[in-house]
């Protein structure tokens, strides 16, 4: 018998209409790094919610050190020595690093904090595992990488034995990822057991000992990582051989549509520019992609381009028209479409009906209004036409409240709206985030179709595969600057990675005008 610290045996969790976890077994050995692999919606987070007592499974048992346990709430999990680094950090911005670490397990005398001992313990842990932090810095002032180290220290401070990392690398630079991998190996060597949730194959190959794969709520298998290949893992994850290429012709770029010159955007958080001296152009009939690790200024740049954020210097021309300081309304009505990064925050009014969302930027146009009144009939017809054409599914058709629709259909509704509007430039930010494979393929096809119809497309994506498959030119953004321009046909993932990490810097870019 193997020595398992935590076993989740035959876990089944159902929600009406969907089985989120169907007979899933996950066994974690002491001192191993165990990867949990699966696409979005494969059931990884449901399984973790079961482990933390947020959901009660219909079937299945959880064992700790071979003994059956019941976990009713997160505190039970904590008592069993299970700790988690959440995807969205659970840190209080205005507290110091030390306060965040001790929060909930404060050393005290008669209720008064005794931070001295805590500081000693934290510094010792930080030394032992090489987790460099400044205990007195405020969370809002430190880098994302350091915030993650604080999260890890939080678990170590509580002497947790089982550490769960939920997609920990999404927000990190390659160097920080390397460092995290080292830390994880260190922790495992010290006898901690690590569960590593991810969908990035490279990272699994690098650090994990074993890997459990989930697909659409089902348990696919557990493999030893050194006996498998990336290709095997990926086909287990998606259930078929992944087709890496998107069918498309060679681009035939026409005249310049968008020209960006030396654009800078001030950061809201720190002193420096979050976007610095960005210059490039996009022509009709081509897909230009901005690649980069999350948080390197892409969001801010798109904000400045579309008008959501202020631009501090530089110039943006759109079809020869200087639109640097034009309003969002002006850009909307002069041919710029925008599929926003966050569909819930910007893209949709969730409490409006589908039809109302379909005319969100156009309600005042003569097609949909007369004398200040909304033409309900044309709104309905328009919405019906779009939902039909783009296969947007909803419970009550045009009158469905958007909040009740699935994420995929919400995204499709936005895509439909933005693509149908009269436009020459489509700005699409992570248009396929969180969608299933079918929806992704559909959206990719639509984007290529737009390109072939002569539209200029600016794509921002964090998924390297999407970047490589879809784009005709790739611009890499690092720390707010465009550090390189590559041709997807001739470049390699390795080269792209070097640019993204800031290790490679294209001097020619400096001369671009």
């Amino acid at each position, binding site marked *: 018998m193997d020595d398992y610290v935590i076993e989740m045996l035959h876990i089944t969790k159902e929600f009406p209409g969907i089985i989120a976890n169907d007979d899933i077994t996950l066994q974690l050995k002491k001192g191993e790094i165990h990867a949990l692999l699966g696409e979005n919606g494969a059931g990884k987070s449901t399984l973790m919610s079961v482990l933390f007592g*947020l959901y009660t499974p219909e079937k299945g048992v959880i064992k700790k050190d071979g003994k059956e346990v019941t976990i009713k709430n*997160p*505190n039970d999990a*904590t008592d069993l020595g299970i700790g*988690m680094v*959440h995807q969205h950090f*659970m*840190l*209080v*911005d*205005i*507290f110091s690093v030390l*306060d*965040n670490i*001790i*929060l*909930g*397990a*404060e050393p*005290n005398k008669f*209720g*008064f*904090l005794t931070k001295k001992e805590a500081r000693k313990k934290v510094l010792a842990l930080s030394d032992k595992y090489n987790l460099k932090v400044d205990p007195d810095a405020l969370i809002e002032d430190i880098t994302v990488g350091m915030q993650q180290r604080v999260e890890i220290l*939080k678990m170590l401070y509580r002497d947790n034995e089982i550490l769960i990392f939920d997609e920990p690398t999404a927000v990190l630079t390659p160097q920080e990822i390397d460092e995290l991998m080292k830390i994880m190996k260190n922790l495992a060597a010290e006898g901690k057991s690590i569960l590593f949730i991810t969908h990035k194959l490279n990272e699994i190959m690098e650090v994990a000992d074993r890997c459990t794969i989930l697909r659409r709520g089902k348990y696919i298998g557990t493999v030893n990582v050194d006996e498998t290949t990336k290709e095997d893992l990926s086909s287990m994850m998606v259930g078929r051989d992944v087709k890496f290429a998107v069918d498309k012709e060679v681009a035939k770029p026409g005249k310049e549509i968008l020209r960006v010159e030396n654009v800078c955007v001030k950061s809201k958080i720190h002193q420096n520019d979050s976007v610095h001296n960005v210059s490039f152009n996009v022509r009709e009939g081509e897909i230009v992609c901005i690649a980069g690790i999350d948080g390197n200024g892409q969001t801010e740049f798109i904000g400045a381009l579309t008008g959501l954020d202020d631009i501090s210097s530089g110039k943006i021309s759109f079809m020869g028209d200087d639109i640097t300081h034009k309003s969002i309304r002006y850009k909307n009505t002069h041919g710029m479409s925008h599929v926003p990064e966050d569909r819930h925050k910007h893209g949709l009014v969730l409490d409006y009906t589908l039809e109302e969302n379909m005319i969100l930027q156009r309600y005042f146009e003569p097609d949909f209004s007369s004398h200040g009144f909304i033409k309900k009939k044309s709104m309905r017809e328009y919405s019906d036409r779009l939902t039909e054409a783009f296969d947007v599914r909803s419970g009550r058709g045009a009158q469905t409240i958007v909040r009740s629709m699935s994420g995929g259909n919400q995204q499709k509704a936005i895509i439909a709206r933005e693509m149908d509007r009269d436009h020459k430039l489509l700005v699409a930010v992570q248009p396929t985030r969180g969608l299933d494979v079918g929806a992704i393929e559909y959206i990719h096809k639509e984007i290529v179709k737009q390109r072939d119809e002569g539209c200029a497309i600016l794509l921002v994506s964090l998924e390297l595969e999407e970047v490589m498959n879809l784009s005709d030119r790739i611009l890499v953004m690092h720390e707010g600057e465009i550090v390189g321009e590559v041709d997807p046909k001739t470049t390699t993932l390795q080269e792209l990675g070097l640019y993204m990490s800031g290790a490679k810097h294209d001097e020619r870019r400096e001369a671009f005008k």
Partner: protein
Amino acid sequence: MILLIQYTLIFSAVLILVALGGMFSERSGIINLGLEGIMVFGAMAGAMVMVLLPDTASRFTIVTLTLLAAAVVGMLSSLLIGVACIYFKADQTLIGTAVNMLATAAATVIVKAFNTARSKGSDFSAKLDYVRGHDAFMFNVGSLQLSWFIVVAAILLVVAIVLFYKTKFALRLRACGEHPQAADSVGINVYAMRYAGVLMSGFLAGLGGLIYIAAANSTWHFDYGVAGAGFLALAVMIFGQWKPERIAWSAVLFAVFRSLSNVYMGIGFLSVLKIPGTVYNMFPYIVSLIVLAFTSQKSRAPKAEGIPYDKGSR
């Protein structure tokens, strides 16, 4: 001038206590617009105790029991806000407003009924007299007449500052107002902490209400409520950026203006100006509005205040 100091001290005491109450509540994540109402409840309870205590009661008994009554009733009435906003996740602005209306109406009804019963049907007013109770709180330092209320307020201020910066409790409370999900993830009971914050605001605002009516007056008409002192305290709290020591300073500032409207007649150069007293009343509000205009861009309000916490949505 001495009168000005006396009034300033009294108003400062009121504003400090009530604003600190608002601070603890907001730090836990609950916007307490009902401070005004809680003050009324606390004031009423304290006044009734002063009226009801027999003539033979010692000074010490009067002081302790009155303060206790105000604090306890303040806490009870704060539960009106706590239960609605924490358990039922009601709109905090609406509930705060409702509690204010409820307090004035309830105080009027109760005091009138109380008077009617005591006078056997000859007195229908919403007025309470408590000269003896008022006097019990007074002592003199030189020519300056002081009240025990001010001492109590000073002590509570020190306690609040120590509590706020030095204890485990406050660290947890503040976490709940900033990032309740994070607090929950480390095993802190967010609901309990929010109840604690609201109850503290009830305790402090109840006392504040009592001081407001009893420190400078010996009689009070309850159909007036507390005439906006609770809202002024909210302004003090924002002005003090949700920090106890800064709240203390801004309370004094506001109190000076408030006192000027009461005593400007007695101050030579001010009475010459012939500005109606009402203008001084208006002043603190104008000042705080202007100050808010300049400071709100980088306001340090607790991030999660006003948002009901739902355990499921973590």
